[in-house]
């Protein structure tokens, strides 16, 4: 940045020191441009999160800070069951998204531009579509007279409609579709960095195609798998709309608890405490995944 400014000033026979000072003061002013957004987020993002913390350590009849809310929730069997269900559901959904996303991302790196564009378009469209609309579509698909039951009855697999809507299975199906794009994009990014000639080398040295795939491509895409899994897990465990609409109150997940205590029973301390526990679980997974990814990047396997 400073080189041509200097040369211009030299041609105008002013000192290089003054030019450097001019650049420096410009940089100072440039630095200030980040302030409005930062201040806005401090007031409108950080302070609200502080409020969340404040409500979680306050309890009626107790002076100052207390861990009573956490103690109450973490010894409540219904809460622990709900937390367990949320974690299990998120792991299952992440696994399904990985199994369907990995082959698609792999093909993406092996196909021409037209296919690539198709895959990206089909990935981005649901990613940007309203969660309410997607959940509504799954209600139509999973219902008694929906597409899946019509197909199953038409093919003679079952005589009476299978109950999918307002069940945990239905929510698993709907959530895995929602999370697939979040799994696909990091996978595609990671796999594009792998040199395809590595797999070809393995094949020409006598490995079968599937052996080359599992021994070369799969380990090298580990960073993408970890990134996609973190994203998918964190988003599933905090998903509210799809479990509420497709689950229809047939079961409870952590986000449902947060909404109920905040809006229905107006118990803000419980709502805030539940939200913080959710954040801690999600952050623990993110942190664990990131340290795993670091091991993949620097470990002996990455040679």
């Amino acid at each position, binding site marked *: 940045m400073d080189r041509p400014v200097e040369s211009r000033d030299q041609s105008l026979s002013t000192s290089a020191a003054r030019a450097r000072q001019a650049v420096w003061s410009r940089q100072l002013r440039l630095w200030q*441009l980040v302030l409005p957004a930062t201040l806005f987020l401090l007031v409108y993002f950080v302070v609200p999160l502080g409020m969340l913390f404040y409500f979680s350590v306050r309890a009626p009849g107790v002076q100052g800070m207390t861990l009573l809310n956490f103690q109450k929730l973490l010894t409540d069997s219904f809460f622990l069951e709900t937390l367990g269900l949320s974690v299990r559901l998120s792991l299952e959904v992440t696994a399904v998204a990985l199994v369907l996303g990995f082959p698609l991302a792999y093909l993406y790196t092996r196909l021409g531009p037209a296919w690539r564009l198709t895959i990206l378009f089909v990935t981005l469209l649901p990613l940007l579509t309203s969660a309410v609309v997607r959940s509504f*579509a799954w209600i139509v698909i999973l219902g008694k007279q929906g597409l899946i039951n019509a197909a199953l009855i038409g093919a003679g697999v079952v005589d009476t409609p299978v109950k999918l809507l307002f069940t945990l299975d239905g929510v698993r199906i709907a959530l895995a579709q929602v999370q697939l794009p979040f799994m696909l994009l990091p996978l595609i990014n990671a796999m594009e960095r792998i040199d395809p000639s590595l797999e070809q080398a393995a094949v020409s040295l006598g490995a079968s195609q599937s052996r080359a795939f599992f021994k070369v491509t799969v380990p090298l895409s580990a960073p993408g798998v970890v990134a996609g899994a973190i994203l998918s897990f964190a*988003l599933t465990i905090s998903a509210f709309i799809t479990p509420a609409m497709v689950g229809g109150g047939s079961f409870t997940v952590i986000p449902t608890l947060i909404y109920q205590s905040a809006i229905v029973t107006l118990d803000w301390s419980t709502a805030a405490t539940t939200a913080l526990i959710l954040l801690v679980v999600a952050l623990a997974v993110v942190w664990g995944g990131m340290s795993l990814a670091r091991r993949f990047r620097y470990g002996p396997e990455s040679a």
Partner: protein
Amino acid sequence: MGQRVPERAGRLGGRVGHAVFWVAIWTLALAGLLYLLLPTLIIVLASFTAGEYITFPPRGLSLRWFARLMALEEVRTSAWRSLIVATAATAVAVVLGVAAAFPLVRSRFAGREALNAFLMSPLILPSLVYGLAGLMFVSAIGVPLSVPVLVLSHVAIIVPYVIRTTAASLALLDPHLEEAARSLGANAWKTFLRVILPNLLPGIATGAAFAFISSFDNLTVSLFLAGPRVETLPIRLFAMINFDLDPAAAAISAVLVLITFAVVLLAHWAVGLTRVVRL
């Protein structure tokens, strides 16, 4: 001679294995593509039903439910409100985000990486948690729930999109262009308006489009911060689907899918989808 038989069998096995491998990959990949596309396809097709209920396949084709949308006063009011909220939130986010992107890319200062992570953090926080925190904040400072409150809360969650796409475009912009403009006598403002801004426009437009659609479609933050008198379109739609399966809800959904389609096309036209996914 004796050795050639197992070798040939091995090669045949290899070819069969090769075919099985690719059939498996293609099957799973095509299943994934269909799975991704199915809900969008179904909801758009279902909205053209001529029947009284939503079914798939639709019973006859008609535009009656789209016509009914126009007659539904609540839908019109909430759609108009969502449009205002999303437009205002996007405008504020573009001003804050574009300004912030410059120092994040062009300046060197201590803690730049940390600041970048901080400005991106609203993307990671579950929006339900932010909605709850925002509600607590707003009631603590004693401000009644209103459209401006909703706009500001949407700005907080969409500003990262603008920062990210603008910063990505700026990183690709050759600094020599600016220097050329400056050395040819353009002042800082002129350089910004005539040289930098036109080059960043595709990136800014993509970020603004993503920001707009995120605000327009947002339900979880609005559920907490909209209040009973400020109903947005996603809240209306949520209620319509949960309380009575009105086919007009499918018509609204089809319109929302169309808007999303336009956003993806805009992103492709402006910067190309292969670059969008690397953001």
